[in-house]
């Protein structure tokens, strides 16, 4: 303790800043991107020690010319590719329509997943119907990957009389058990550990179902994320732990969640998990990585963490205006491109698709969503008080399996 305090300069708080703010010209030229195919695929039973390269390199399959490269994807059948592209396109068309509907005052709130369509659609197609996804509000792609009825989603968004959830829940916080789509929580991160519990249950029962947990970069700072990582590592739970790093959490840059000094995948390695970084705008990479992780889990080798490198192209939600905190051009400058464009190019290269068919399909899905929206709106929209609305009674139902006396009395007090 012979230090002399006066030797030291005053400390200062380090507060990370994003590289670009409104007014700046974004430039991602120093962003390191491995060439497509450069990062090899290990066997699913490889020991953890042999997987560490996967936590900093980025797994990529589609190159700039639209060709699939490397060991991650071998024989993907054409039908799947077509399905993938259509799922992404329909997701985007749906988002566009619902965004408009919110602007028109037909509901309270909406959240798009623009730019992130590859991740959820590909993962859903790589998993089985008996698996369970624990999505955030930005994984609607899971539903389009299985052609889930659009009207069910729209009725929920409009909180109308046909909404399965009877208007009780905020728009986009869907619950579709049959679709393997867990009831979405408005509280960030809580479902990450629940997904691990679900996977543990499958192992306890000796089943072969796996769970997929979803979270954003920002929400990884929550305690439930940590709990999930610890439990998944300790019990080698059959789960896929997805982090969608779209670089923004509302107005907050991902460096405030710690992305500035280590990758999320590196963090995951410290929990004894297999951890991949994947180009989230590359549908083939997304599919291949999800397949690998699913196979690894289902074969009893434990949990895989996947960091999806992507960018939130749109606003956080209809309540948000990103031009207030990031350059409008940032998305354009972002080097991993658009997931739909990239898969489209691949399909064109493979002669399975064309610009014309694409334009046609865009129009078709826009039409579909318009007419679906009209049908759903015929069931009512949120603020229409002169139309039949979801029942008031339902507020008292499902609080418990059986309604206790005090709720019965309150329902009476409400007069329904």
């Amino acid at each position, binding site marked *: 303790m012979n230090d002399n305090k006066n030797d030291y300069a005053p400390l200062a708080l380090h507060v990370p800043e994003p590289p670009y703010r409104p007014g700046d010209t974004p430039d991602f030229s120093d962003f390191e991107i491995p060439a497509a195919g450069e990062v090899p695929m290990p066997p699913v039973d490889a020991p953890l020690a042999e997987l560490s390269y996967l936590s900093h390199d980025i797994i990529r399959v589609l190159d700039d010319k639209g060709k699939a490269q490397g060991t991650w994807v071998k024989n993907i059948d054409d039908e799947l590719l077509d399905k993938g592209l259509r799922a992404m396109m329909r997701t985007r068309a749906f988002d566009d329509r619902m965004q408009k509907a919110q602007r028109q005052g037909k509901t309270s709130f909406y959240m798009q997943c623009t730019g992130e369509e590859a991740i959820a659609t590909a993962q859903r197609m790589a998993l089985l119907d008996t698996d369970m996804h624990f999505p955030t509000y930005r994984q609607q792609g899971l539903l389009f990957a299985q052609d889930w009825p659009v009207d069910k989603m729209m009725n929920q968004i409009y909180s109308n009389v046909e909404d399965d959830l009877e208007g009780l829940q905020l728009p986009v916080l869907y619950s579709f*058990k049959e679709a393997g789509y867990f009831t979405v929580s408005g509280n960030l991160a809580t479902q990450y550990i*629940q997904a*691990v519990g*679900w996977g543990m249950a499958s192992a306890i029962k000796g089943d072969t179902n796996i*769970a997929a947990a979803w979270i954003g970069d920002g929400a990884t700072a929550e305690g439930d994320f940590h*709990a999930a990582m610890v439990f998944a590592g300790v019990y080698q739970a059959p789960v896929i732990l997805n982090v969608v790093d779209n670089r923004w959490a509302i107005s907050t840059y991902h460096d405030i969640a710690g992305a500035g000094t280590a990758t999320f995948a590196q963090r995951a390695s410290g929990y004894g998990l297999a951890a991949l970084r994947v180009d989230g705008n590359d549908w083939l990479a997304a599919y291949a990585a999800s397949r690998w992780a699913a196979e690894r889990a289902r074969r009893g080798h434990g949990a895989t963490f996947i960091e999806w490198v992507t960018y939130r192209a749109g606003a956080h939600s209809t309540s948000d205006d990103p031009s207030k905190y990031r350059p409008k051009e940032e998305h354009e400058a972002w080097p991993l491109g658009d997931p739909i464009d990239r898969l489209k190019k691949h399909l064109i290269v493979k002669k399975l698709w064309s610009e014309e068919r694409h334009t046609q399909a865009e129009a078709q899905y826009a039409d579909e969503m318009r007419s679906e929206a009209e049908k759903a709106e015929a069931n009512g929209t949120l603020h229409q008080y002169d139309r039949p609305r979801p029942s008031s009674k339902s507020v008292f139902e499902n609080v418990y*399996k059986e309604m*206790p006396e005090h709720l019965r009395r309150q329902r009476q007090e409400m007069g329904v």
Partner: protein
Amino acid sequence: MFDDKTETKTMNMIEAIRDAHDVMMERDSNVVVFGEDVGYFGGVFRCTAGLQEKYGKSRAFDTPISENGIVGAAVGMAAYGLRPCVEVQFADYMFPAYDQITQEAARLRFRSKGQFTAPMTIRMPTGGGIFGGMTHSQSPEALFTHVAGLKTVIPCTPYDAKGLLISAIEDDDPVIFLEPKRLYNGPFDGHHDRPVVPWSKHPAGEVPVGYYNIPLGKAATIREGSDVTVLAYGTMRFVAEVAAEETGVDAEILDLRTLLPLDLEAIEQSVRKTGRCVIIHEATRTSGFGAELLSIVQESCFYHLEAPVMRVTGWDTPYPHAQEWEYFPGPKRVGEALKKVMEAA
């Protein structure tokens, strides 16, 4: 409660709780048990001793020290179809799990319109009387009763503990199961200077072997009386008994057993009969569960009340260590309230 032919065994509350686990794990392979030190060792209070050996590591196991992890994982398991019965080592340590309990488990059924449910039990030792200081003595029941979707149960005898825990595990909604730790080894009436009484000396220490249940939502009338209704639960039930005895006030004592859903009928009937009411609990007073009880009594029995309803509770301070008996609402304070409520108009 059970007829003469029922085979019984003398148990303390720990043994009764362990037995409830055993009965349910035997009957239903979906029942799984976990928590900190719960597996190999069988829990710091030994409430899960022997379960891992009997049912294997995948049905009774140790967890990381993460209460939110324990409850969060249980929610996921319950959604899968299991019936987790988990232990939080002390109720004082449930706070990191409060989000998972109140925002997740409690609302899963509601927000999914019954598609997903959380049939799970969260056990936790509660209350003071063991010199545990502020971090091993709290009584957080009011923090659960304020939350729609939860049931809150608090037994005070081995017999009730087993029957209620079985009901809790069988229940299709999340149940908070509070175990008054001062009662684990024997009834305790607050006379800390008198010899410890074991459960073997108390009739409710005779516990039926095998399966039985006590329905949630039903209070027990511990003592009939005509002067005043005492609403109590947990350790306070025994304090109420001894206070009635010592003051000679002819109190009707209700052990609520389930705080939510509450046995409204039993409360209303009794207060309408006696016209007076004393409410006792160990938790801090302000916004304690006593406030709700008082409100219910006032709302539904106003015209029968002959005196103000009184609350005897822990003080609105953290639970102190050396001053345990100045904090604990013992027979003296309860007795004074009984007398005071009888003196009133």
